């Protein structure tokens, strides 16, 4: 009887472990680390479009700067960061998880890559999945919110 119980327990745990490993493998492959969207506009037009889309969704613009600012001088102006924040959401998220500073302020990177203008950002859903962060939703409420802003900017 005891052996039967152990065998069932062992089989159940083995099955659970297998399912868990499989689930992790599948999810890690499906979820993109970055959200990226090509823009049909020029770099400066896309930056302006992103700023307008961000404001239209009640986020406050913090600043816009070249990625290289503070590190390199000269011509490295093909990659820009647009920082923005919804203070109410940020405050609520900080109440849940104080370690989310790396997501503050929310941001988009707009860059020229091989003649194309690309809007990109770290996927909040990937952060939540890979780190278990309680407040992965701090930026733009969720990945869908980010994508909405990006899509509005390239319309």
């Amino acid at each position, binding site marked *: 009887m005891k052996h039967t119980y152990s065998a069932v327990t062992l089989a159940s*745990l083995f099955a659970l472990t297998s399912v868990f490993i499989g689930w992790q493998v599948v999810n890690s492959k499906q979820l993109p680390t970055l959200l990226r969207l090509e823009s049909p506009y020029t770099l400066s037009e896309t930056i302006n479009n992103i700023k307008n889309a961000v404001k239209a969704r009640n986020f406050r613009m913090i600043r816009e700067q070249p990625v290289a600012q503070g590190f390199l001088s000269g011509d490295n102006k093909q*990659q820009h960061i647009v920082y923005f924040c919804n203070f*109410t959401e940020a405050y609520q998220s900080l109440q849940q998880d*104080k370690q989310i500073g790396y997501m503050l302020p929310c941001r988009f990177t707009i860059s020229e890559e091989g003649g194309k203008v690309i809007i990109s*950002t*770290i996927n909040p859903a990937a*952060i939540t999945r890979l780190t278990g962060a309680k407040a992965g939703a701090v930026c733009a409420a969720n990945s869908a919110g980010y994508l909405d802003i990006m899509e509005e900017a390239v319309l």
Partner: protein
Amino acid sequence: MMTIFSRIIIALFVVCILVACDKIESAQTRNDFTDVMLDLQTNIQAKGYKVSRVQQVDVGMKKSGYTIAEYRVVFFARPDEVKTILEKYPEFASFLPLSITIYKDGDITRLAGMPFVLPRSGASTQDLKTMIETWEKDTADIIHQTAETSD
């Protein structure tokens, strides 16, 4: 015999859960926030990084009507690595600059890094992977050195 197998499976299950959630490097100290902030910036520079900005999250929050304790995000990077990323791996620009968060939590000052599992998982070349692993190690060293030197 079955019990040993069961224990192995249980251990494997626990390890899977721990591995699945990549931790964010963190440390804490009871020293004064201002002193820890200075130590943090000194330690960042000692590793060859340049601090480009300190985002005063608590100040921005206060202007919007939300009061929180001191909460700052320190942005930093190595200029030559910024150049390499922008020229060779522009898709990784979203991960720059690196950051360490420093905040007050009651009497304690806490330091937290960023989840390097994201850029690491997307690194396409060995050079890039090595660079990201160095960032990860340096960030952990800076955080722990700061907490230790400040204590």
